[in-house]
């Protein structure tokens, strides 16, 4: 159910809509099977499920890395299933992505790694300087802006990735197994950073981490073999 953007400011709108989406790969395996759901603006959502359940496929469809075989996907008014979709760049500039393997650029220092997110949208130098410093402060890396990735721990690298994803007021933050390569303590530290953006951005996290999902008490969509088997408003991780 979508709600129009109104003058009130507090009225809920739908940010992402999946309607009867199916994805079959050329070799015949089905990643997603007739799934439908909506995610509201500024909502915090977990996608959980075993490996191969379809979590990553959903995230990749939101960024139009892959196109569904059938069904429709609307992301912030962009119909990303339209074959003639010509606003891929505009769509992707609204989305910040965090990967399990961080995807931090090894030949650039931390400042440059975060700045790249603003550079691609053509921000000017002074804005980049201010925003990057502010964001690094937010993720607790303000003293390491000139350091290169090789000198950082896994947790710090994931902080860099988060900073790169949230900078530039991107509406949607997508994280694919953000704590997958981290120890439990660091995982909690990382999730605390996500918590800072709760209610300010639409946050979608695909994860296996039962403890984190249970403790956050946010909306949980449980996937199994390409289907949504449970959609809990304030749920835990049960399979």
């Amino acid at each position, binding site marked *: 159910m979508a709600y129009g953007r109104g003058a009130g400011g507090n009225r809920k709108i739908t940010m992402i809509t999946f309607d009867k989406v199916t994805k079959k790969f050329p070799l015949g395996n089905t990643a997603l099977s007739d799934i439908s759901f909506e995610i509201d603006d500024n909502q915090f959502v977990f996608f959980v499920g075993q490996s191969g359940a379809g979590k990553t496929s959903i995230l990749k469809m939101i*960024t139009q890395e892959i196109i569904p075989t059938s069904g429709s996907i609307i992301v912030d008014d962009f119909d990303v299933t339209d074959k003639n979709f010509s606003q891929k*760049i505009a769509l992707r*500039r609204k989305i910040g*992505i965090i990967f399990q393997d961080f995807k931090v*650029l090894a030949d650039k220092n931390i400042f440059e790694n975060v700045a790249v997110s603003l550079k691609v949208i053509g921000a000017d130098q002074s804005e980049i300087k201010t925003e990057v410093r502010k964001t690094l402060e937010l993720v607790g890396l303000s003293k390491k802006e000139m350091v290169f990735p090789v000198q950082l721990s896994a947790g710090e690298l994931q902080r860099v990735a988060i900073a790169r994803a949230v900078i530039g007021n991107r509406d949607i933050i997508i994280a694919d197994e953000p704590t997958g390569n981290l120890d439990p303590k660091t995982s909690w530290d990382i999730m605390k950073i996500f918590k800072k953006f709760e209610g300010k951005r639409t946050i979608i996290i695909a994860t296996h981490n039962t403890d984190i999902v249970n403790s956050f008490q946010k909306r949980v969509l449980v996937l199994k073999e390409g289907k949504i088997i449970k959609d809990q408003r304030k749920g835990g991780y049960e399979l």
Partner: protein
Amino acid sequence: MKEIWTSIRRTPYQSLSAFLILFFTLFLTLILFVSLTFLYGTLNYLETKPQVTVYFQNKTVENHIFKVRDELMSSGKVLNIKYISKNEAFNIYKQLNKDNPLLLEMVSADILPPSLEIYAKKPIFLPEIAEYLKKQGDIDEVQYEKDIIDKLLVLTNTIRKSALIFFSYLIIMSIIVLTTMILFKIALKESEITLLKLIGATNFYIRKPYVLESLFLGISASLLSFGIFSFIVFYFNPFLQSYLRGVTSLSVDVFNYPLAIWPLNYVFFTIVFVSISLFGAIIASVASYIATNKYLKV
């Protein structure tokens, strides 16, 4: 510039290979281009000389000579015809032998034949004009520089065709090698390109560093080619001057504008430099465009 230099330092062998291939292509292109220009210049020079001279018998009346002249002019194959009367021929003879009174005493205007000096529009018309003249009455002799013109025509055509094939081969080879070199570099940065695409970078933003680096290599290779070429030309300049003694100037038509190529001058060198730099930049841009295209489909 800093980013270009960093990229070159990180992949020095790929960069050096790309540079050497570009240099090889551009240097050979430069040599062929200038050689062809000089050949065309020489052809143009020869076209300014009387290409066919026809000597009439002494008894020939002027009206007959004028009739032949008018028929040739109306053929559309002749640029200009100059009539040399007996008296004019004698004046020329006197001028040529002014230091030899004995020769001057032996010759009078009566024994020198009237003639026509004919300038053809194109060297290719010369044999036809000569054949036409031989069929006219009262002709004593038809002279034209058949061998030289024919050889130059054959040489120019051969070089032009060979150069075209050679150019095409060089261009294809250098684009393929350069593309491969850039692909090696991009392969090292594939995950970075994927990331940039996912965060909303335009294709131009992603291509820019690779295109700029290729342009840098292309223009550097052009500069080196031009530098070595200039050194060779100036080193051999005394030899060229002695070889082309008597040739006051050579020029080629560039869009109906006569461009002087000999004596060597700055305008010609500037045009050669700009052309070769543009050529290097185009090859480099095309190669980097092809190479980056493969990785932009995310």
